[in-house]
């Protein structure tokens, strides 16, 4: 096996204007691991996820995916932006699922899933359709291959979005509050797909407010507050006996609400 973790986030700083959102955050994710990222809103969870595949630039620190730096290259000890083409190459191997789905509205469900395999990986249309159909069947949408996103429910759209990311056969999946925009009765079907994925050994970083999912499906919890990882540990420990005051307050508030 290779000696390095699949994902290493090391001392990353990120600011929007004068507001520092990430204040030297570090996180390591091993192959096959599912890490649930919890924390109050505005704590930097989503920003961390977006930095991991370079949808956001960073000011300091480094992000290593499978041993390669994401978005930057080091020249004489200084970070320089990496070319669009090379960054795109790294992103192929990192799937991302967004809170608001971001399906392509002008393409059918199958079109959404085959677009990148055909135009990025260079698969033939037949291969891509075969792969896409298989994935849509797997997320329970084998009957809706030709439906446009506007004809699907939120839960169905998010399942298409997961299939779309999986079609690139990524080594890592990022979930950015994937169930937060869904009606309560549709949350379950998306979480079920995510649980299956976790059970099959996919490496996942999941930003979520679903404590139950975090407890059952994650191997590790990373609790973020104010731009740093405040506490990390196994779900059982974290939920039963959080070590930090901030984690205790956060859990108490969430449980009181739920």
């Amino acid at each position, binding site marked *: 096996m290779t000696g390095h973790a699949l994902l290493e986030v090391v001392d990353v700083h990120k600011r929007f204007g004068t507001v520092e959102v990430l204040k030297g955050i570090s996180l390591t994710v091993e192959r096959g691991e599912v890490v649930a990222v919890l924390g109050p809103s505005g704590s930097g969870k989503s920003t961390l996820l977006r930095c991991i*595949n370079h*949808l956001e630039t960073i000011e300091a620190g480094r992000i290593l995916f499978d041993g390669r730096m994401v978005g930057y290259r080091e020249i004489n000890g200084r970070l320089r932006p990496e070319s*669009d*083409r090379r960054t*795109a*190459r790294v*992103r*192929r*191997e*990192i*799937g*991302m699922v*967004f809170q*608001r789905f*971001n*399906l*392509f*509205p*002008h*393409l*059918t469900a199958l079109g959404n899933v085959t*677009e*990148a395999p055909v*135009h*990025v990986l260079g698969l033939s249309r037949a291969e891509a359709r075969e792969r896409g159909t298989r994935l849509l069947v797997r997320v329970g949408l084998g009957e809706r291959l030709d439906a*446009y*996103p*506007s004809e699907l429910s939120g839960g169905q759209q998010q399942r298409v*979005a997961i299939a*779309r*990311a999986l079609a*690139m056969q990524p080594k890592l999946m990022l979930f950015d509050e994937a169930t937060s925009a869904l009606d309560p009765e549709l949350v379950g079907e998306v979480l079920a797909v995510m649980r299956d994925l976790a059970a099959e050994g996919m490496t996942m970083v999941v930003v979520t407010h679903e404590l139950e999912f975090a407890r059952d499906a994650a191997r590790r919890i990373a609790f973020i507050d104010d731009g740093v990882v405040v506490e990390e540990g196994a779900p059982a420990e974290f939920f039963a006996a959080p070590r930090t005051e901030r984690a205790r307050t956060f859990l108490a508030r969430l449980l009181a609400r739920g």
Partner: protein
Amino acid sequence: MLLAGTLDWGVIGNNLFSDLVLRGVRLTIVLTVLSMSIGAVLGTAFALLRGSRFSALRAASIGYIWLFRGTPLLVQIVFWYFALPQLWPGWAPWNGQLSSFQAGLVALSVNQGAYMTEIMRAGLLSVDPGQAEAARSLGMTAPLTMRRIVLPQAMRVVIPPVGNEFIAMLKNSSLVSVISVSELFLVAKLQYSSTLRYLEWLIIVSIWYLALTTLASVGQAWLEQRFSRGRGRGERSAGIGERMARALGRLGRREIGA
């Protein structure tokens, strides 16, 4: 009786489909299609420059619109044909002089490009930034994202105003008659100047302009339908053009059936 005496229907009937008039019609169509196409390319390019990281490129885009939208088209036409050679003899890469057709085409295209820049900019801005993020997260490069995901969605917003511009261009192309490009209007002008049959010739050109603009709005409706794939019916407009297209479709079927 007086009215009947002043209008000679025979002049109209004899000339509506004469070779002379048809040549003018053809040139009007060629000028319109070519200048709209070149204008669309210019407009897309300057709209993209407007979003550039480099302030000089953004300024170039703003300056282009300011200059060519802010001065009369008629002035620009005369400028390209008469004034530019005076300023810079032999400027054109081939014979050093543009033919009147070429100068007219350049004037119409560059002018149209300024309007198209604003239309394309609005179209690009109308696409949710999440679309580009989803595409980038699948490993698409910036140009591929633009071509496959953003532009097709911008088209939906862009087609109605471009249809407007196309119709305006059919008529505005008559302005190049001042540098003696023998398009539809100049043909008529030369005829009524020598025969003094003003009314008859104006009716002839008006019939042709109406026919061409009607055809253009049917084409627009067809394009709108094509690019609204995946959108709910409620978002689609059923303008006069679309209704006409449907009516013509019914008419066509009936004729085939009969």
